[in-house]
């Protein structure tokens, strides 16, 4: 993966200006942090946390040049991709984190591809599984864990494996599936970070999560911002920077379809 080196001064200037504007009232207290702010790194690496062993074989990208699903499972465009850093390991402070996948298009919209998302603990015990049919469109999709149904929360300090599969026909012949996977660990939310997050602007939150090497939370926050502010240039820059840092720059232009707004607003909040 070749990373274009961007002049660091330009980046830190942008961060500095934003911060200065946001933290005007706290300038004296916060100025040391402005100097320290790293924001989104040029290359995403996990230094604070050691990835679990045995994830070396995990696929982040599937269905690429060498494997397009074959005749049984044609997909069009870019390969199925888990939005994970290159080491396929992400950390989160969330009990119910979200996961993100780039889904390639189905060449024939009349035959939507069934897909499956599975979350397991490190012993391979099922925690959550869902299966549904796509409408055949390509784009980055969010996989949320339901929050109001007594789902077992991720335990702090534990590693979990997640897999996303396109079930290729025949459906009972799972060896044909296109599969990507990643690992996630829930970590404790540092009280200092918690305080900073509570005071931070939405884009500053992205930087704080990134500095804390919390991949899942950085990505989740940024995806939400991209959906809500699709034309915001600062958010767009963060998006490019984050995907570049993770070696996912080929997905920068992919759609992040916004959540539909149902007419029955009152109970959409119960959505998983």
């Amino acid at each position, binding site marked *: 993966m070749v990373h274009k080196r961007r002049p660091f001064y330009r980046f830190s200037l942008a961060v500095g200006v934003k911060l200065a504007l946001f933290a005007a009232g706290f300038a004296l207290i916060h100025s040391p942090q402005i100097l320290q702010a790293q924001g989104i790194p040029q290359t995403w690496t996990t230094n604070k946390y050691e990835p679990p062993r045995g994830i070396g074989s995990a696929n982040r990208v599937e269905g690429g040049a060498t494997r397009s699903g074959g005749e049984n499972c044609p997909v069009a465009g870019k390969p199925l991709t888990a939005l994970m850093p290159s080491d396929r390991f992400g950390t989160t402070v*969330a*009990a*119910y984190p979200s996961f993100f996948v780039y*889904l390639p298009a189905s060449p024939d919209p009349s035959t*939507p591809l069934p*897909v499956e998302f599975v979350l397991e603990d490190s012993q391979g*015990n*099922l*925690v*959550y*599984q*869902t*299966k*549904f*049919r*796509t*409408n055949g*469109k390509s*784009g980055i*999709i*969010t*996989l*949320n864990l*339901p*929050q*109001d*149904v*007594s*789902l*077992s*929360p991720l335990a702090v300090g534990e590693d979990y494996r997640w897999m996303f599969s396109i079930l290729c026909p025949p459906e009972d012949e799972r060896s044909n599936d296109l599969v990507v996977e990643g690992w996630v660990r829930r970590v404790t939310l540092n009280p200092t970070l918690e305080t900073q997050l509570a005071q931070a602007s939405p884009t500053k939150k992205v930087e704080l999560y990134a500095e804390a090497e919390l991949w899942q939370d950085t990505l989740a926050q940024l995806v939400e911002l991209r959906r809500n502010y699709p034309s915001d240039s600062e958010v767009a820059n963060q998006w490019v920077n984050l995907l570049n840092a993770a070696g996912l720059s080929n997905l920068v232009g992919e759609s*992040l*379809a*916004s*959540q*539909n707004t*149902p*007419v*029955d*607003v*009152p*109970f*959409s*909040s*119960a*959505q*998983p």
Partner: protein
Amino acid sequence: MAWFTHSSRFTVALALTLGLVANVPAGVQAQLGGSPLSRDIPTEWEFTPPDSQGPSIPGNREGGGTRGPCIANPKPGQVPIALVPESGVGKTIAEYPTLSWYLPKNTAWGVELMVRNAKGEEIYSTKYAFAHYTGQDSQGDEKQYVVGAPGIMSLTLPNLESSVLPPETGQTYKWTLKLICDTQEPSGDVYVDGAFERVEPDANLVRRIQQATPEQRVAIYASERLWYETLNTLVELRRDRPNDQGLKAAWSQLLRSVELEQIVEEPVAQGVRTNPN
């Protein structure tokens, strides 16, 4: 147009949404309300016997046939229940409906939910492990009980942007909930099922709903016999204001209208959301 004829309730409801009388005790709210919400809930939910020509009418609303070994309290009525009208089918205008079920106190591993279209094709399924807490049974033995049970759980079919095949209007979808006591012992599984029929809301209804407070929505939904919307709006209101007597009465009325009065006293408000910490 219920709220025009109940202007006093409208005023109170409006004030509530503005947060002006947010701390008024529930009893006072009910008095001020004049016409209680429960009066807007029908005594019989279904006008006519269900249309039996549909291929996917469920017949197993309550998990009474099989007694799961993980149900804590083996007394009548303490079974999993799909919260649907007696016919098994409720109407909804939601593109991604919220399905609700009651679970008695239990020690199950988890559940599986499956949604099928009229052709019997599975369009959505999910299976997950419950959060548990350690408690003692009547013999004093330690058991791992499910968080939020007894209680009502609700799951909205996920709106995965455009990636889920949206349930089509005018179709009936059957949903089946399987309480999995032990993943190694499928014979102990308890099944319940229900169905939803997608209907298209007309523009007038959409406008009325958008302009209404949550309480008014309950009344509108009930008058339109939109079961899932009525139930879910009321469940959410009760979770927000568990001590509101007017809501309690409306809830009781709604369950009676579909012959589910045995769970009137069961909690909807507490313990349903898993503590994320």
